[in-house]
Every structure is written in structure tokens, then in C-alpha cells.
């Protein structure tokens, strides 16, 4: 089986289309970053409180909002995933006090515990430690010396059943009889009640850590670009390094722009995805550069743009195959990898498409453009001048000028 057999596409001839395409997406992204959504930062970077709550029934946004407003949380963002009975409640750092970091979380939980009987704890939001201590105090099994272990085991079993079998929310005490001693279950009802929700995940980031992470992420991206520039400068020529870095920058810009356009938050794992995409896009670029370097030695007669075109075509089937296969795995991650990895896999889905496109459409033309510019300046060749006067988009003979 083979998709491509000796393809011969004039990629460089289409560089104006490519330029237009890239410009449209970059400018749209930049526009959105500047004037529309900005760069939507996740809680990791902006600081704040994020609470994922799982309900035993489909959640009702209005009731939740009303409950939150009652305790004074007016600016809370509420995002629900009705299919999983999940709700995500998001507070900005301004709303929670800096001194008591977890105040926002406590307020949210208190707000949701609408019909809590006085003096009773919520079994759906109780840790096994607290539970074990409670049992130890009540001592329903009249345990002797091994009371500590026995009650710890009972508490563990109850909490495990709640979290692993019931997905975090118990709906009746009776179902606990399956995993715990009936005497234990009976005494539980004296001190506990069951609310209709369980806290699934909490992320609280103070403003200091947020700033720290922001600067780290920036430096990580900058260092990673610098590392590439140096390595490619050392392995090839410096212009290859520059071309690769411009390409990768282009990819990053468009990916971040896409996050801004659809107002999806950039979290720490998204930064990891962006760094991966930098590595991936660079991979692609290097494969083509390697071929150009090899062909430069073999094809002494041809112009640079012919060589570049030939090299892209020769590696095209590999480029498409690898991109396709990697895309396949990332798509699996996007579709089946769960909510937590959504941002991460989304960045990679976009990144792989853009990264593959850019090594053909951006990196290679930069090499030719640089060559044109240098020869045009050095020798004042009329070819270059006439070439740049051509109608954009006609494509023929575009960029064929070179120093040779």
C-alpha cells in the first residue's frame, strides 16, 4: 500500500497562499488576544479557586448560582457537564482572601449544603480519617486493643465504596451494609447525613504561585526555543535555526490564538502540550532540512528552490504518515482521555496540524526567501526584482531566483 508515489508538487509556488493562510489565523488569534478574550489563563496562572463537584442528580445552574450568591460569591463562574452530573465552580483570586487560601472552597461547600441537619457531618464530604476517629469515639463494635485498625479499615471500606464504586456520591445509608458492619452503619446515622454532592477535585492557587508559574512557563518556552536555535545552528547553518524558530513561533502563536478564540483556558498541562508541539513541529522541520542538506550535496546544478521543492516532495509521504499516525493517537487522547486532559489534547490536535503544515509552508520558504534576499542584495540580480513584481497567487516561477 502506498499513498504517494514520487509526488511532484510545487510547494514553493504556493507560498503566497500559505502566507495568506498563516496571516489570517495569526491575525485572528492576535486580534482575539488583544481585543476579545485576551489570553484565557487557567487557575494555575491567574490564581484562584476551582472546585469540581459531582451531584447525585443532574445539576441545576440557577439553584447553584442562587446558593453561591447567598454566601456572597457573586462573580463565580459555573460550568456544568450535565451528562456526568458534574459542575465546575471557578472563583477568581480577587474573590478569595489571600490570607485564608481555602476560604473560597469552604464557602462553596457551605453554600451547597443547603439542607444540612444541625450538628451532623456530611458523609459525602468526609475523609476516612475523620470517619475513623468518629467510629473510635462511638465504638459501635466494642472493639478491644485492635480498635484503631478495625475502625480505620471500616472507614477505609466505606470511603472506598463511596469513591470507587459510587463515583463519589452515596445516596443512602442502607447501601453501606454491603461493605461495612451493620452496627457501624447504624451509628453513622447519628452523626452523619448524606448531601446530594461530593467534591471531586479542588485546585487552589495563591497569587504568588500563579505569578511564579507564569514566569516559569514563559522561560520554559523561551529556553526551549533558544535550545533549538543553538542546536540547529550547530548542526546546520544559523539560518536554518532561525527558520525553525520562526516556524515554531508561528505554531505557538496560532495554537495560543486558537485557545483565545474559543476562550479555552490555558493551564499548566497546556503549556506542556505547547512545548511538546514545539518539539514535534521541529522534528518535522528537521526531517525536511536534513533532506535539503543531503540534496545540496547531490544536486549541484539546480537552484535552491528546486532543491527545497524536491526535498519536501521526497519526504512528503513520511511527513503525512507520521502526522497522520501521531494525529491518530492524539485524537484518541482527545476523544477518550477524559475531561482533565482535554486542554492538553486539544493543544496537540491543533499543534500537530499546524506543525506539519508549517514545516512545509513556513520553514522551507524562509530558507529560499533568505537566499533570494541575500543574492538580491549582493549581486543586484534583476531576476529577484522581476520575481517579486509578479501577481501574488499566480505561483509560477515564484521564488525560483537564487544566487546560482
Amino acid at each position, binding site marked *: 500500500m502506498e499513498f504517494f508515489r514520487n509526488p511532484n508538487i510545487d510547494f514553493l509556488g504556493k507560498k503566497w497562499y500559505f502566507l495568506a493562510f498563516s496571516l489570517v489565523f495569526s491575525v485572528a488569534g492576535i486580534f482575539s488576544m488583544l481585543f476579545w478574550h485576551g489570553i484565557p489563563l487557567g487557575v494555575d496562572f491567574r490564581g484562584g479557586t476551582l472546585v*469540581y463537584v459531582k451531584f447525585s442528580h443532574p445539576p441545576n445552574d440557577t439553584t447553584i448560582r442562587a446558593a453561591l450568591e447567598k454566601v456572597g460569591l457573586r462573580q463565580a463562574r459555573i460550568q456544568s457537564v450535565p451528562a456526568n452530573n458534574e459542575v465546575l465552580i471557578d472563583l477568581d483570586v480577587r474573590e478569595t482572601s489571600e490570607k485564608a487560601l481555602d476560604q473560597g472552597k469552604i464557602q462553596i461547600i457551605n453554600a451547597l449544603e443547603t439542607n444540612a441537619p444541625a450538628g451532623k457531618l456530611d458523609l459525602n464530604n468526609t475523609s476516612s480519617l475523620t470517619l475513623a476517629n468518629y467510629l473510635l469515639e462511638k465504638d459501635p463494635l466494642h472493639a478491644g486493643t485492635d480498635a484503631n485498625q478495625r475502625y*480505620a479499615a471500616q472507614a477505609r471500606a466505606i470511603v472506598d465504596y463511596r469513591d*470507587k464504586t459510587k463515583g463519589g456520591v452515596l445516596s443512602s445509608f442502607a447501601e453501606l451494609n454491603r461493605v461495612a458492619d451493620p452496627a457501624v452503619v447504624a451509628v453513622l446515622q447519628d452523626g452523619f447525613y448524606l448531601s446530594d454532592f461530593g467534591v471531586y477535585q*479542588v485546585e487552589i492557587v495563591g497569587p*504568588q504561585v500563579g505569578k511564579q508559574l507564569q514566569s516559569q512557563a514563559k522561560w520554559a518556552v523561551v529556553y526551549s526555543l533558544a535550545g*533549538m536555535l543553538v542546536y540547529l545552528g550547530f548542526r546546520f547553518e544559523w539560518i536554518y535555526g532561525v527558520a525553525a524558530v520562526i516556524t515554531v513561533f508561528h505554531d505557538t502563536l496560532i495554537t495560543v490564538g486558537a485557545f483565545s478564540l474559543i476562550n479555552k483556558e490555558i493551564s499548566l498541562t497546556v503549556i506542556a502540550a505547547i*512545548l511538546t508541539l514545539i518539539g514535534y513541529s521541529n*522534528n518535522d522541520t528537521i526531517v525536511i532540512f536534513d533532506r535539503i542538506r543531503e540534496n545540496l550535496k547531490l544536486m549541484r546544478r539546480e537552484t535552491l528552490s528546486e532543491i527545497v521543492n524536491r526535498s519536501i516532495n521526497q519526504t512528503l509521504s513520511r511527513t503525512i504518515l507520521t502526522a497522520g499516525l501521531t494525529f*491518530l493517537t492524539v485524537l484518541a*487522547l482527545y476523544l477518550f482521555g477524559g475531561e482533565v486532559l482535554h486542554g492538553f489534547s486539544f493543544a496537540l490536535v491543533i499543534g500537530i496540524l499546524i506543525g506539519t503544515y508549517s514545516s512545509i509552508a513556513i520553514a522551507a520558504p524562509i530558507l529560499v526567501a533568505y537566499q533570494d534576499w541575500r543574492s538580491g542584495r549582493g549581486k543586484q540580480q534583476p531576476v529577484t526584482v522581476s520575481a517579486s513584481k509578479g501577481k501574488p497567487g499566480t505561483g509560477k516561477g515564484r521564488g525560483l531566483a537564487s544566487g546560482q
Partner: protein
Amino acid sequence: MNKNLGWKLGLIVATLLLFLFGIFGIPKDFSGHGLLASLEDRIHLGLDLRGGTHLILQVQVNDAVNGDSDRAVERLKEDLRTHKINYTEIIKPDPVNHPEQIVLKGVPPEASSDLRSIVSERLPEYALNSGAENTWTFSMKPQALAELKNRAVTQAIETIRNRIDQLGVTEPVIQEHGLGQYQILVQLPGVDDPARVKEIMQSTAMLEIKQVLGGPYGSEQEALQQHNGVLPPDSMLLKFHGIGSRAGEDSVEQYYLVTRSSAVAGADLRAGGASVGRDSNSNAPDVNFVLTNEGGRKFAAFTGSHVGEKLAVVLDNRVREVATINEQIHDQGRISGGGMNEQTAKDLALVLNSGALPAGIKYLEERTVGPSLGSDSIRAGVRAAVIGMLAVLIFMLVYYHGAGINADIALILNLVILLGFLGFSGATLTLPGIAGVILTVGMGVDSNVLIFERIREELRNGKTPTSAVEQGFSHAWITIVDTHVTTIVSAFILFIFGTGPVRGFAVTLTFGLLANLFTAVFVSRMIFDWILSRKQRGEALSI
């Protein structure tokens, strides 16, 4: 040729066995269940997969510096007295920003040489500078200051570990957090109720007993009004905060005016001397403590001379209990009331026994992953990995026929080595780490595609299978090295800058790519050589 293949095959089988051992160890039984159990034993799951709490806290190191300079002030006062040197006052000019500075005013010029010798002998960690009008400034030497701050962090880690250990949390991580100054990273697997753990960790456990000078007052203003706007010298106003009540839950605000100096301080508490008991009248839980001999003497002297007056039990600068002194008390004390229940009493005894924190703690970050989310994430991650992997394996078979088997073997071996690496190194597998595994599959197959496409190209150009394979590998090798190095560079940077889950991703990606160099180049090559050695001359290669 066959002999050459022999040792290569041996090496590959040895690698396979080695890394299979890395994944499973030596399983007790070879059923699916036994294998899974040993797999869970070998591969450490990150907090995001097993559930638990991740905290970053900041040690307020200036507290420790203030403590040290306070002691220095006391020592200095004592020495000046014994050497009969006069002075007008000793102050700390800026305890908030420069806790390491002490200013001594009004020392007569003729005493300066005595002063210098006292300082060099008794306070060697301070540098002495003379200023105008007989004023002297002491500031801690930078090296001593840095040491003191670092020691505060180490001590805080030690104390927190003591407390966590007593709570019975399994496999906690308590270590310095390299990214910020004086920060501590605490990871508590399985703890889904951070509020209580935090309260226990945060308590500096500075237990003091002070004399009550006045109160209770309803507010700070009221207390000030009672004293005509100025508090009496050497006194301070402290808020009342019952032990059983959580932060911000006190129904009535109450303030007490107490002495600045303490009758009994944390160091006077006998190690391990705190225990939970029960009040003989109300049968409510309370905490008993025993003082050291020295502390007992001080306390007896204090209570003996203040019978009928009130004392305050102060913990972490909050009044926990106020009691009237009925008679002289020696070395035993009791904290009760304040709405304590069994658990809060136990926690209080725990923090008192684990020793005081050298400095206060501030929380900077808190992440809690419920165990239900963790197991959901594992399921989703594994499902995505299996689907992605299968898709790639099937595609390679369809597209490259015989050589596809070759690529699939290399890919599976790649995965075995990667997981084995994780088992051996004890690196943790996080959710982004699973994503790294999936991505490794995608990018790992790239090496095979590069090589195969090149071989096809060479075959098209009329080369024999043997030389096409030869050429394909040697050309692709250069490219593979270049691509792997750049990706590993970005993974490395990610490792340096990232934390927790992101680091897990960098680790799996790097291991995966390193393993890929071996599988996609060495193993694949061997399989090709083996196939070629069995073929007749001129027979075509299935690729």
C-alpha cells in the same frame, strides 16, 4: 552473519526480560490478577491518578530570625548588666523587613571596647557597626542569616513530617520545593480532607502561659478605650479562639490583655508530655501536659505569687483558655473547654508532642484530587492509550505488510522498555505521563516510518533489498538523532521548569524517546537482517 544475529537476538531478549522484570518484578502468580497486583506495586502513580492532596507552603523564615534576634537582645541585656555597661535602650528598628537588626543606644564611648569583646565572644554571628551619638547597630552576618533561614525550613520539614507520620498517612512526600524560596512541598496520597491536616501542620504549637491583665473585651477598640488609648508597657492584646472552633467560626469576638513575657513557653514543655484525658466533672475530653523541671520551677514561682489572679493558655498567639489560679501549681497543666471534642483534643496533643515549628507557615497552593476522579482518569488514560496504540499497530500492518510486523514488534518493545524504566527508576506515572506514553507511540513510530520510506525510495531507485536496507538505515539515522535530540531538549526543559504532573510527562517522553533509539534502529535493523539472511537472492522485500 548468523553468529552476528545470534548475539543481537540475545541482547534483545535480555533487554526484554530485564524490562519486563522492571514492570512486574517477580509476580507471585501469573494470573491476570497477580500480574496486575505486581504492576501496581512497581509503578508509582502520581497524586492525580491515586487521589490525594498536594500543598505548597511557605515558611515565614523571618519569624525564625525574629526569634533569634529576640534571644540575642535578652542575652545582650544580661551581659551589659553583668559588665555594668550603661545604655539607654535596645530596640529592633524594623522587625518586619529587617528582623536581623538590633540597635543599641546611649552606650558611653569608654565602654566601646568592652562592648566589642562581649559581641565577639557572646554573639559571634552578629556584626557590630558604630553609628552617630553612641548608637550601635548589630546585624546578623549574611552567612549566619542564610543558615538560620535554611535551618528553619529544615526544622519545619522535620516537624511537619513528625506530625504527618502520627496521622498515619501512607507514603507522604514532604520536601523542600525547589521553585520558590523557603517553600515546602507536601503530598499526601489518599488524604481527601486537607482542612484538618492543614490545621495540624500549620499550628506552630507555640504554647505559652501568660498572666491576664484585663479582659475580656468585645473589640480591640474597646480594650484601647479602657486604657485611654495606650496599652500598658510590656503587654499585648490577644484574640480568644476556642480550640474546637475552626477559623472564622467564633461566635463572639473576645480579646484579652496579657503580659508580653510568658510564665511558661514552648521550650518548657516536656517532650512527649502531652496526653488526652477527660475532665473529671463534665467528662469532656481535655489535654494534660507536663513541664520540664526548669519549667515546673518557673511555673510554681509564678502561680505561687499570683493566686487569685487569672492566667491565659496561649497557643499560636491566640488565647485558648482563661483560668483563675486557685493554688500554686507545679509541673502539670491542663487545657480544657473551648468546645473540644475527641478529635481536636487528640490533634492538639499531637502538635504539642511533635514540637514547635520554628516559624509560621503560609499556604500558597492546594490541590485535592478525589480518588474517584483518579480512577476515572486512569480508566480514560488507559483506554485512550490502548485505542491509539491499536490504531497505529493496525495501520502499520496494512501499510507496510511484512515490515509492518517489524515496526509493531519495535513499538511494543518500546512500550515495554518505557514502562520498565518507570518501574526501575521509581519515577511516578501521572495523567500527563500517560499522555506522554501515548505521544511516544505516535512519535516513536515516526522513526520506523522514516526508515521504511527511505528503504522504499532506495528500492524504487533500483537498489537490491540488502543495500536498500543498508542505505535506508544509514540515511535515516542522522535525521533520527537530530529529531530525538531536539525533542529531548524540550522535554528536559519541561522537567526543569515543570512541577508534579508536568514533570511526569517530561520523564515518560524522554524515556520513551531514548528507548525508541534502541527499538526503532537496533531492533528493527536486526529483524531486517534476519529476514534478508533467509531470503534467496533477488527475492523481493515485503515493505
